[in-house]
């Protein structure tokens, strides 16, 4: 656990990510309302909540893929939702992994991974490929480097997508339901990877419907309801002893299926 313990001055430093009163509307109907959330460096925060509660929207707003309707988002103390800030430069510090992987189908795995290092960071191909191959070896995909994404299983594609997001050495990693398109046997592969990232001290904000996943990686679980964070705390607290009736009702459904 290299960086899992915050440095001694951690308490004085601003959080890595700070959302303040964030509101997001789609065509007049609010999806996020006055949402406030801090994520400290090396912290892993898991968002849970019913389908349509705004988890994906929140992650997309943080990555500036969606403009917010009100409030502010800060990364490393910088107001990233300020219109004067160049969104491309902000995104280079944030990695994002999507539910449906979104690998580029016309490129090999290694080209997928080295696209941003080469085009955005201007690194030479050989150097970028070496780093990509190292990371691929770490996630057990050494032999798939030259394959096209459609020749990979879902779990392999998702691991490749995570490597692609990591190769930029982001400050913050956003993961949107990275296991929900996978068969149960493949979920483990991705989960192991996320846990090893956590051990390395990667700051992560992730959305999931899998309470087992939430429990095993989260420092903090946030229950999203009606565009607000209704309840948050350590996983044992939120998942096992929720305070709010709505949280209880939401978790009830998982408990009934024996999936808590």
């Amino acid at each position, binding site marked *: 656990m290299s960086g899992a313990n915050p440095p001694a001055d951690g308490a004085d430093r601003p959080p890595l990510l700070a959302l303040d009163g964030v509101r997001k509307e789609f065509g007049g109907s609010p999806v996020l309302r006055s949402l406030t959330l801090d994520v400290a460096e090396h912290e892993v925060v898991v968002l849970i909540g019913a389908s349509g509660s705004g988890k994906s929207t929140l992650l*997309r707003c943080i*990555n500036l*893929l969606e403009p917010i309707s009100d409030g502010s988002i800060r990364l490393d103390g910088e107001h990233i939702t300020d219109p004067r800030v160049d969104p*491309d*430069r902000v*995104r*280079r510090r*944030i*990695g*994002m992994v*999507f539910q*449906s992987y*979104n*690998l*580029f*189908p*016309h490129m090999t795995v290694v080209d997928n991974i080295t*696209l*941003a290092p080469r*085009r*955005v960071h201007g690194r030479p191909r050989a150097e970028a490929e070496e780093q990509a191959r190292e990371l691929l070896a770490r996630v057990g995909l050494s032999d798939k480097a030259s394959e096209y994404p*459609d020749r990979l299983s879902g779990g392999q594609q998702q691991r490749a*997508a995570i490597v*692609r*997001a990591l190769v*930029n050495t982001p400050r913050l990693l956003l993961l949107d339901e990275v*296991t*929900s398109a*996978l*068969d*149960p046997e493949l*979920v*483990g592969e991705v*989960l*192991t990877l996320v*846990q090893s990232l956590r051990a390395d001290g990667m700051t992560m904000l992730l959305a999931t*419907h*899998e*309470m*087992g*996943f939430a*429990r*095993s990686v989260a420092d903090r679980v946030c229950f999203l309801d009606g565009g607000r964070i209704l309840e948050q705390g350590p996983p044992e607290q939120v998942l096992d002893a929720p305070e709010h009736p709505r949280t209880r009702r939401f978790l009830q459904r*998982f408990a009934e*299926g*024996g*999936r808590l």
Partner: protein
Amino acid sequence: MTAPLDDPRRHDSGGGPPVPGPAEEEYRPSPLQREREAYLRRQTVRSVLIAAASTAVVGVALAAAVLGSPGWERVRATFFDPDVALDALPEVAAGLWLNLRLLVFCALGALALGLLVAVLRTLRGPVFFPLRALATGYTYGFRGAPLIIVLYLMTFGVPGLRLEGTPSVLVLGGIALVVTYGAYIAEVFRAGIESVHPGQIAAARSLGLTYRQAMRHVVLPQAVRRVSPPLLNDMVALQKDVGLISLAGPIDAIRAAQIATAETYNFTPYIVAGVLFILMAVPLVAVTDRITVRAARRQSADGAR
């Protein structure tokens, strides 16, 4: 590993993992399979024979009708005279060289223009409104305008302005073809761009690529691959339409055939030009077919997943 994970959408595949059997011995098709293959072979042979026979019947009937018709001798003499064909061939072939060069120039020009217009039409935001409006107006206007009118306007109208440095009629005619075909091709490209899943742009942007980089490295390569069959089809159509340049005066294959016809009062030179045009199209058509088949195969592979 972690605590057992539970997927709410778990779907049991039913059979469980395949049981690893003993190493398979030398495989030999079962009698059932051999019988099946033999039957399929017999069916194939039968179908081929039937198709060949019916083609032959139709062919013979057509030939008999044409060759036996009362006017055949005169038609043969005016359209299929080998001596006239041989005489006209050098001029018509020389004209075809012009068509070929014009085709290459117009194809590249129309593809470049089409791509540019298609990309302009995808730009969002008020800043780009004028460009977007211009691009949209262009595709609406030129897809509706008959090529022949654009051609006349360019080749007869523009020189009429008597401006300094007006290019040759050939170049003007080429421009008419480029702007007309550019409008069709822009729409093909736009369809391709829009068929690329928005998640691809989101993924590219999330990696820090700018809009331009995302377009150039992620969206356009996928779009172009998808639309290459229809694009090539447009190229085949363009290939024929470059012959319309003859209406404006330059001596291309068709114009050369017209001149030869005027001299001999025999239409065989047109047939020569037509055959040469078909020959010129054959490679393009063959490539188009190959690429279409490949694209279809790739799509079905996608769908199977």
